């Protein structure tokens, strides 16, 4: 089977592949309207139904379809006229032909290389580690390979202190968890309270740190908290013996 006799049934064209090729090159069929993917699928179908792969034919098909793809993509991309003039039908055919000739040239070079490799069959080179006495170099065999200036430059780099970055524009809020724990304990000494109460008038960072403080108290067993519904009010209550003991002591 040759590529030429690949039967196609496309919307814009029905017939053998080589006829399509000719019509495209003579611009009787607009390449832009030819779905190349369908040609590939048709080719694969045919391959499958035949159950064998002729490399020669397969390569020819690939070269042809690749050339068509490139021609089509060039047609699809608008270009400046002086950069790349439109193909005349004859030129397109020449381009396709040149492509196939080039592929053929390197296929032959490949045959030559494969033959050369086969001719060297049986010529083996030695791949053994060096004897131990040669593995460790003697100082006498060494020459200068490093530049001492590199050391001076490295030391100069270490003497340099980068200028202190100006942090004046950054305000660093200072809220400590300890302070918020103390604040919560003070509230809880008077009984149950709410989270809103605990963070009344506070900024976002303080609200966040207060939440950490509350987690800390919960972990210590000093407080429990409940929230009946999502986004609802959080009630905080003193809990456990330690809290009671603390309340009694105070």
């Amino acid at each position, binding site marked *: 089977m040759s590529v*030429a006799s690949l039967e196609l049934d496309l919307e814009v064209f029905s*017939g*053998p592949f*080589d*006829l*399509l*090729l*000719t*019509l495209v*090159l003579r611009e009787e069929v607009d390449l832009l309207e030819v779905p190349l993917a369908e040609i590939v699928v048709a080719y694969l179908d045919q391959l499958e139904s035949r159950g064998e792969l002729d*490399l020669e034919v397969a*390569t020819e098909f*690939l*070269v*042809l*379809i*690749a*050339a068509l793809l*490139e021609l089509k993509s060039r047609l699809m991309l608008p270009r400046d006229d002086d950069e790349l003039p439109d193909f005349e039908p004859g030129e397109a*055919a020449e381009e*396709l*032909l040149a*492509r*196939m*000739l*080039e*592929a*053929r*040239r*390197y*296929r*032959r*070079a*490949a*045959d*030559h*290389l*494969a033959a*050369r*490799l*086969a*001719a*060297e*069959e*049986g*010529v*083996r*080179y*030695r*791949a*053994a580690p*060096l*004897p131990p006495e*040669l593995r460790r170099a003697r100082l006498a065999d060494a020459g200068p390979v490093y530049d001492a200036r590199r050391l001076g430059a490295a030391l100069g780099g270490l003497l340099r202190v980068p200028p202190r970055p100006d942090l004046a524009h950054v305000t660093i809020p200072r809220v400590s968890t300890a302070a918020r724990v103390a604040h919560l304990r003070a509230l809880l000494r008077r009984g149950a309270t709410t989270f809103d109460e605990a963070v009344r008038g506070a900024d976002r960072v303080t609200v966040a740190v207060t939440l950490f403080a509350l987690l800390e108290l919960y972990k210590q067993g000093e407080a429990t908290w409940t929230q009946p519904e999502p986004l609802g009010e959080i009630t905080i209550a003193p809990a456990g013996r330690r809290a009671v003991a603390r309340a009694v002591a105070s």
Partner: protein
Amino acid sequence: MSELARIVEALLFLSPDPVGVAELAEAAACEADEIAAALEELDRAYAPGERGLQLKRVAGGVALATDPVAEEAARRLLAKPRTPPLTPAQAETLAIVAYLQPVSRPEITRIRGVAADSATATLEERGLVEQAGRSQFGAVLYRTTDRFLTLFGLDSLDALPSVSEWDPSPEEEAELRERLLRAGEQRLGESASA
């Protein structure tokens, strides 16, 4: 055998890669023409059919290698083939790299009409090609290695036949042209007359 020839023989035995004459001269602390004379002496000692080893000029240097007479036994002793043969895709990719180097993978793909990624990767893994920087468009460029020259028994890339030798003949070109155009036109004629 002269002492210098003996030294050169030992150096070639130890060195994992082909060694150039200049390197041999530096190691043996002598002149290049003395090395050349020693190599001639070794050439006589290793005349074809004399020994189990031969003196090869490959990859711009000299190397000792086995004579194919021992291949069958070597395969049994070492339990591995010398180097696996190339698949057609690998051979084509290698040919394109050998003749056009440095060459990028997209360029190889353009010539072959089919992606060369796996073939290039295998050739690189087998040490036959290596990366050689990047093209102005950022694609990795490939070139052949000294190992390629050694395994293919080539002294240098110049030892490859000129690429024009592989050009299809005018007859072939004409035939291809025929197949591209006339075959289709013929069908066109047929369908018109049908």
